[in-house]
């Protein structure tokens, strides 16, 4: 057989492609249930961690059933609608949110028909929004957990922020990322980064939504800026990830403002 001939080359390449595709598909399909289970357990563990409940891979689901008593979704106006928070995918929601944000920003430059068109588009995007909420009951109180998602430097970042029953003070939070720089932006998933968030407030004393601001340390730190209630330290060398996290919190949590205010009677 002429191993250098055209037909041989062509047939060889075709067979190789088919064999490789078959092996990879077979592996992917058969391993998929295991992989999905891993992702699910990880999600459960993150939600539990945001309220300070430690879990292992084995007991995560039991603890979830035990402590998480509420799992529902809201619409953009803060009213409860059909659906489960756990099954709601956040990535498309974040896309809607960023689209609306861009349109809102462009409203200033538009007028007349264009403006009306943009406004109705914003309303339309808003009507498609789904806001997931979890409720947790522990011995030391009841808390609400909000999933958040945004953009880091290299990819998505996400997390869970738990609030006390005043819908204002942060009880705990966990953050995660897909591929931020190790040792720098990737440290948003470390305790030393998320611990300072505990006790910070989302609303100012006058009831305005402030969210959390990340400050460069040292002279520009939160304490120096007089913002101890709403400020935490960013990560040195992880500026873009820190800014992305700040934006993520502001953009995601601001959409819950109607709900928080109605629940807390602010």
């Amino acid at each position, binding site marked *: 057989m002429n*191993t*250098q001939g055209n037909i*041989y*080359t062509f047939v*060889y*390449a075709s067979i*190789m*492609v088919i064999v*490789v595709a078959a*092996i*990879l598909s077979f*592996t*992917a399909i058969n*391993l998929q249930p*295991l*992989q999905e289970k*891993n992702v699910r357990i*990880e999600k459960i563990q993150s939600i539990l961690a945001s309220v300070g409940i430690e879990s292992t891979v084995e007991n995560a689901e039991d603890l979830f059933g035990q402590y998480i008593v509420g799992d529902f979704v809201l619409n953009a106006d803060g009213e409860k609608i059909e659906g489960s928070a756990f099954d709601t995918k956040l990535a498309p929601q974040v896309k809607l949110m960023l689209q609306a944000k861009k349109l809102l920003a462009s409203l200033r430059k538009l007028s007349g028909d264009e403006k009306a068109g943009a406004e109705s588009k914003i309303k339309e995007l808003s009507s498609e929004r789904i806001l997931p909420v979890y409720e947790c009951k522990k011995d030391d109180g009841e808390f609400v957990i909000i999933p958040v998602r945004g953009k880091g430097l*290299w990819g998505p970042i996400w997390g869970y922020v738990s609030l006390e029953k005043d819908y204002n003070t942060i009880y705990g939070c966990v953050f995660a990322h*897909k*591929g931020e720089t*190790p*040792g*720098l932006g990737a440290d948003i998933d470390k305790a030393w980064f998320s611990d300072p968030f505990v006790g910070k407030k989302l609303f100012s004393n006058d009831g305005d939504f402030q969210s959390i601001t990340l400050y460069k340390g040292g002279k520009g730190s939160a304490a120096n800026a007089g913002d101890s209630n709403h400020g935490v330290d960013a990560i*040195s*060398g992880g500026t873009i990830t820190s800014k992305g996290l700040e934006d993520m919190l502001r953009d995601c949590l601001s959409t819950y403002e109607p709900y928080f205010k109605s629940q807390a009677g602010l």
Partner: protein
Amino acid sequence: MSLFSSKDLKLLTNPLNVDNPITVQVLGICSALAVTVKLEPAIVLSIAVLAVLALANVIISLLRNTIPSRIRIIVQLVVIASLVILVDQVLKAFLYDVSKQLSVFVGLIITNCIIMGRLEAFALGNKPWPSFLDGVGNAAGYGMILILVAFIRELFGSGTLTLPSLGEVKIIPQAFYDFGYANNGFIILPPMALIVVGIIIWVQRSRTRELIEEN
């Protein structure tokens, strides 16, 4: 045909020093910079490269007489990429925590020149068993340098060592910091990794006679 002749032993031990893929062949430098910020990813990546390199070497060696020369590189690439994808899928299913740490770096294995380099230089012209040994030897040489560089960078850059299943272990005692010692943040940046590798090459060349070139 002995299973482990002295020639085979050389295949395993040469890449550890005299023919080290990173310091002598100067291959795989990219990952030596990227994954050595912390120790654990370096360890796990070394093991992953070992699996891919050994298997790829064996597969290409078995196929070596059938591959059409015109698509030689493409076939090698397909084999490497498929193996890396398989490794990634298996990690995601059975070692989820590890796969999360390697998330960015698993793809880097495909671009690692060492693998393509060994396939071209050895597997295409040798039998499966020697190819397997060559793969293991080169992966071991690669892993050794990676772990050494990561050890230095993390120790001096963060004062800790991150080990698999042990997590981050603080090595430099707090007393040092109180005294005024500060972590060398510079060493966490990629250029310093290159300098560390350069210093390793320098030390290795001075101490290993065979590598000193006649001027």
